[in-house]
């Protein structure tokens, strides 16, 4: 069944965004969008108000009548209504969870992965071996007031006392939910199945306990799905019920409301699977930076809770250090003056860079925020230990450091950026350059930005499971993702290996869509941009003897690559990028790289 029109909203903490997707000339396209302030807080305290306001903007623009008597008209006719209405939400601070596991780097980490994957913010990880004394843990749990808790620990059939001990700590703390005083806090138990009865006895009366399959039934395998699904269910049943107006909103939607990052994650997971590619997605916001990745078929999400471009901009400075920010700034500035300027952005987060200098500073900080968030992501997105090798006790307890990161930049096919600083950069070249400088892709990598951050809405659309239109909804999500959601910036090509200044690191022969042939010789530390549309371009890439472009050192690659609004970017800088420490040389390098991409207006 063709869906004539689809309405999707995303209720963010400050803005509610609505998009209308319509079936036009045989394909699904984004046709109109509108937005309005979110109305979760006083004086409205009803999320549906903001939703209706955003939809009204869509109505005005499209001329299609969607609302009647404060309700969404469904199904669609020629001139009114929609066939499906869906929504995501991160209003009121999103979903905030605490997770607990016996061993921090094992069940604790698995629980964290499940919670993050479901789209939540993980406030803390309580573990038997986290170095805190029981009373410190209890104090912390009392202070936190999460929306829900995920408790795990022990392999199936293993020792039960450790996980029960954790439950006793929880019971002693008697945690209270964040919203509403009159309901019990939801707790999911996903640990050793042998301990279920004891857990029920310890916690059953005090909290709203749900028991699901063990998150780590054996050391070698994670089983995140049951926990993730249960988190989504409880998010709908409990958390959303407490948020103002959500009961009404839930009665309007054709699919469960998903936490915004959970929806983005599921879309990225689906794209990676359907197209058999590896993907990294990033959403850099004012307060947090979310990173999603799919490598080796495994999905991972991390939230860098205090790395953002406004509310937590000073934390980027604190974590990266002033020198790391300054290395990207292409002019000299007094350090005290710079920190005051950044501090002022934190306390007045809605301001925009008016001068070019301010833009330089903001984009320099963005590079560091992205770099640090990605570093955290790489450390978290690791394989489970002991899977294909003999496990010893020592590495069984030290998963993070010895588990190898799944993130391999040479394997990365698509890098997608979103969030104000990337999506709204005055020039797309700036978005591409920020992505390259901070993620440092290797080999051949496509770059894109989600210009209006539609991924959350498309994520829920891809998850509509009503029989009559589930399959069509997924088709619509994919079509819109490719045609309207992503702005293709182009492809970054980076040979990696050892080379000296002045060395030719690669030659490239390109056959452009119009038949033109371009041959390019590339020298170490050089950036070259070739204008090219988002169409297949036949490329023959010959790296130098020690350089690797994806097929091994010195191995040639013949493939189709794609341009985009920026084009094909040959980035022959080292990995990691080497910025000269000498102030004059540094400025010279920054200016030369920048001008190769036509990144900023001429001063």
């Amino acid at each position: 069944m063709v869906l004539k029109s689809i309405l999707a909203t995303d209720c963010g903490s400050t803005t509610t965004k609505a998009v209308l997707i319509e079936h036009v000339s045989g394909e699904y396209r984004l046709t109109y969008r509108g937005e309005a302030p979110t109305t979760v807080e006083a004086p409205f305290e009803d999320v549906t108000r903001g939703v209706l306001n955003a939809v009204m903007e869509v109505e005005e623009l499209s001329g299609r009548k969607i609302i009647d008597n404060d309700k969404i008209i469904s199904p669609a006719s020629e001139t009114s209504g929609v066939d499906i209405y869906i929504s995501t939400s991160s209003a009121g601070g999103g979903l905030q969870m605490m997770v607990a596991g016996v061993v921090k780097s094992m069940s604790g980490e698995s629980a964290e992965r499940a919670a993050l994957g479901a789209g939540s913010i993980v406030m803390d990880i309580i573990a038997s071996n986290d170095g805190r004394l029981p009373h410190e843990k209890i104090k912390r749990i009392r202070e936190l007031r999460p929306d829900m808790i995920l408790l795990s620990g022990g392999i199936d059939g293993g020792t039960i006392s450790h996980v029960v001990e954790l439950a006793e700590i929880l019971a002693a703390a008697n945690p209270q939910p964040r919203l509403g005083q009159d309901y019990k806090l939801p707790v999911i138990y996903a640990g050793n199945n042998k301990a279920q009865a004891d857990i029920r006895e310890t916690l059953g009366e005090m909290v709203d306990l749900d028991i699901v399959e063990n998150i780590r039934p054996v050391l070698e395998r994670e089983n995140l799905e049951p926990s993730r699904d249960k988190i989504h269910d409880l998010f709908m049943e409990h958390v959303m019920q407490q948020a103002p107006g959500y009961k009404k909103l839930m009665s309007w939607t054709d699919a469960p409301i998903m936490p915004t990052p959970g929806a983005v994650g599921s879309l990225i997971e689906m794209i990676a699977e359907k197209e058999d590619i590896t993907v990294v997605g990033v959403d850099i916001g004012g307060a947090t930076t979310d990173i999603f990745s799919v490598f080796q078929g495994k999905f991972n999400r991390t939230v860098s809770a205090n790395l953002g471009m406004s509310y937590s901009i000073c934390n980027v400075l604190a974590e990266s250090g002033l020198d790391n920010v300054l290395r990207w700034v292409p002019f000299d500035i007094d350090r005290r003056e710079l920190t005051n300027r950044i501090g002022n952005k934190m306390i007045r987060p809605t301001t925009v860079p008016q001068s070019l200098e301010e833009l330089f500073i903001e984009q320099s900080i963005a590079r560091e925020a992205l770099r640090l968030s990605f570093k955290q992501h790489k450390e978290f997105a690791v394989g489970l230990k002991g899977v294909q090798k003999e496990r010893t006790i020592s590495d069984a307890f030290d998963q993070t450091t010895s588990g190898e990161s799944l993130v391999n930049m040479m394997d990365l096919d698509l890098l997608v950026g979103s969030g104000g600083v990337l999506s709204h950069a005055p020039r797309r070249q700036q978005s591409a350059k920020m992505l390259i400088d901070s993620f440092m892709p290797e080999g051949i990598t496509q770059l894109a930005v989600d210009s209006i951050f539609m991924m959350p809405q498309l994520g829920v659309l891809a998850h509509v499971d009503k029989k009559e239109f589930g399959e069509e909804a997924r088709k619509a999500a994919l079509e819109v993702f490719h045609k309207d959601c992503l702005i293709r910036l182009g492809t970054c090509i980076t040979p990696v290996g050892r080379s000296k200044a002045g060395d030719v690191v690669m030659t490239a022969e390109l056959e452009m869509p119009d038949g033109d042939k371009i041959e390019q010789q590339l020298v170490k530390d050089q950036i070259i941009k070739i204008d090219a549309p988002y169409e297949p371009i036949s490329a023959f890439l010959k790296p130098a003897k020690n350089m690797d472009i994806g097929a091994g050192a010195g191995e040639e690659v013949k493939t189709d690559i794609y341009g985009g609004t920026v084009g094909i970017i040959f980035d022959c800088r080292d990995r990691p990028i080497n910025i000269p420490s000498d102030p004059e040389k540094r400025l010279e390098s920054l200016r030369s790289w920048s001008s190769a991409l036509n990144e900023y207006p001429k001063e």
Partner: protein
Amino acid sequence: MAHAYTPGLKVLHYSNVKKDRTLPIKGQVNKKKGDLVNANDVVAKTDLPGNVSMVKVANLLNIAPSDISDILMVKEGDSVNKGDMIAQTDGLFGLFKSDVRAPVSGTIESVSDVTGQIVMREAPIPVEVDAYVGGVVSEVIENEGVTISSEAAYVQGIFGIGGESRGVLEVITNERGDELLIDSINESHTGKIIVGGSFISLEAFKKAIDLNVEGIVIGGFNYFDLEDVLGYTLGVAITGTEDLVTSLIVTEGYGNIKMSERTFDLLKNHNGDFVSVNGATQIRAGVIRPEIIIPLDKKKIPEDKNQTEGILGIQQGSLVRIIRAPYFGKIGEVLDLPSELQKMESETMVRVANVQINDETFIVPRSNLEMLETY
């Protein structure tokens, strides 16, 4: 007329300030509706559950957890004093007995034969909530607290550190552009809320702390220096829980910035009045700005109590402050609000306002303007 939503800081000669004063958990409310209260009056109190100690009895006595009930000398609900024996083994032929003693005074909350540990809870911790600001109890929230209404002058700062303080207000500098110098702070300011002009140095702030000054209201402070005061780099603007003797309320921003004329004049008008201040700041959804509340003497309450709080946006003629470089800190009047997007030097396309400052017109993105709400 063109109109744009712009957040602004309040600088109000008169406002009916309402403050919820509630307990962290349910308890007892001491005041009833209509009661007059002073800032220091206790309005509600409760007992927080005591701290918890977990005693690993089975581990300490080297027995199986399931055997714990055999050797326990107490049961759930019993009260024990620190040092009391709570478990003892039979020993060998009645000799070589081992025991476990209570590490704290409290009650036995639970005993587990799975983990072999007992949970002890100490005596409840009393918590009191005071009125914070003088006024009248306008509402009682049963078992939770009260709402205090206060007819007051009300000023918001942009950023603060330190929690609630109170004291007599003393304006120290003559001009709003004067720096609050270290030498101008002395013993007579102990227990007071002092007001300076454009800037206070780290050294001067430290001296105020040494002299137990209750609070400082100032135009600007260096972001760089916060680390020295707090002991850590402030990464996220969520403050108020710092353990500081002297609360700091910055009215304009980081750097050396003249205090706005209206703020400075208002505070000067109330020199010598008793005020309540709170440095708590939260710059996220549900914004909290630091505040200065000056309960008004009946004589000072204006007859016309119109408040400006209903105004949500800037319009032609609005008084605004520019809050980002390159014109940071300048105050001017909005000439007009053109509807078309305009390209800035950074090439950002934005909606702008034409702002007149000292007979000169500046084009400024609307989102870089802050409305001065005054009355």
